[in-house]
């Protein structure tokens, strides 16, 4: 099945970026199905993944309406190539061990929870409505991942070692959370979007607070990696999409 091509209009791209963040991280969490370290975590990871995929569905549906070319949520999720995906590099990073998954969740949730809360005041009524639902869900994700990072950091020597390693590995992807480009600036200027730079202090305070409880040291900002918003991804996204899109690419329009 050939890929679809979309116009790069600001609102469409803005919505797709958020939809891609939610879908890619939701898919990553779904990869834990059947492999989580304990039963409760099996449920928690699947539940968080479900929330994110639910948010992605609402956002893709809206993106399809904005584009008005007849692409539904499935077409946008299954028929775009890696370079057309506009998610943050952070969310596509592989699950690694449980510590890496939880640190990744914390770093993302500490941003996206206040982000959605601020987006409830968006001048775009659909985004504001999605934000009002999403922020309730991300509040649970933040709490859950924060509790785990505390347990792991302040746990055994082994869990601490893994939490430290995860933090060092993922830190270079955190700056991208706050990046803006021309598209984002236009959306901010028209009151559709929130300037992510205004959320940086909140994010740092939340993460610093959790790390302090976890007796972990906040990494120094060094070389920061970016590119996801422009479609330049790490080597991992292509593999993720191959699995995510396989069925629709092989048997186009398959339903059950």
């Amino acid at each position: 099945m050939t890929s679809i091509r979309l116009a790069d209009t600001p609102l469409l791209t803005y919505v797709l970026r958020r939809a891609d963040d939610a879908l890619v991280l939701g898919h990553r969490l779904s990869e834990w199905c059947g492999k989580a370290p304990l039963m409760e975590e099996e449920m928690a990871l699947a539940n968080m993944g479900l929330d994110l995929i639910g948010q992605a569905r609402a956002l893709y549906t809206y993106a399809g309406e904005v584009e008005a070319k007849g692409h539904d949520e499935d077409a946008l999720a299954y028929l775009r190539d890696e370079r057309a995906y506009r998610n943050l590099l952070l969310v596509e990073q592989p699950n690694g061990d449980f510590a890496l998954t939880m640190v990744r969740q914390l770093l993302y949730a500490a941003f996206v929870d206040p982000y959605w809360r601020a987006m409830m005041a968006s001048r775009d009524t659909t985004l504001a409505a999605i934000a009002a639902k999403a922020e309730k869900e991300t509040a649970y994700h933040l709490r859950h991942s924060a509790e785990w990072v505390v347990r792991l950091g302040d746990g055994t020597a082994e869990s601490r070692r893994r939490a430290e390693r995860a933090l060092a590995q993922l830190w270079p992807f955190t700056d991208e959370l706050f990046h803006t480009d021309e598209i984002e600036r236009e959306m901010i200027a028209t009151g559709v979007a929130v300037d992510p730079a205004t959320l940086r202090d909140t994010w740092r305070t939340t993460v610093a607070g959790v790390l302090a409880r976890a007796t972990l040291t906040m990494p120094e900002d060094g070389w920061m990696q970016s590119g996801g918003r422009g479609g330049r991804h790490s080597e991992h996204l292509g593999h993720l999409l191959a699995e995510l899109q396989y069925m629709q690419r092989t048997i186009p329009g398959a339903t059950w």
Partner: protein
Amino acid sequence: MTPDREQLRETARRVAGAVADPEIPVLTIADLGVLRDVRVLESGIEVDITPTYCGCPAMTMIALEIELALEKAGLGRPKVVTVLSPAWTTDWMSDEGRAKLKDYGIAPPQKGAGRRALFGVDTVACPQCGSTDTAAIADFGSTACKALWRCNTCREPFDYFKCH
């Protein structure tokens, strides 16, 4: 609206509202606050529903059940519309719904669902014995809307419908 239409709307609302939540069958979608509006138009009946959680898999099922219920009642096939705004909250659950939940063994959500502190502690009464000496086992339970708790008095585990 003419009396006939108003009556039709009331009937449709009653029929649609009686559809049970597929995951918590003691609750109807009227109890839950998932049924938002029913309109009688020239083109037919429109029913608005709102999801509890973005990814709630019961929504498709609920939409299908509404179509079936209205058709069965001779009201024709309705158009079921999902609305996101205003966002559903557990505060919309009726008192009757809360009582039904408790009888079913699920601790109902507390009213006034505000924002929770990052490391907050909730007090949840055991739906079996009423004791408040309870503890959370897991924040995520068998469905998106429930958490798993345990009672330290009667030692029974129970589901808690999370505030949202």
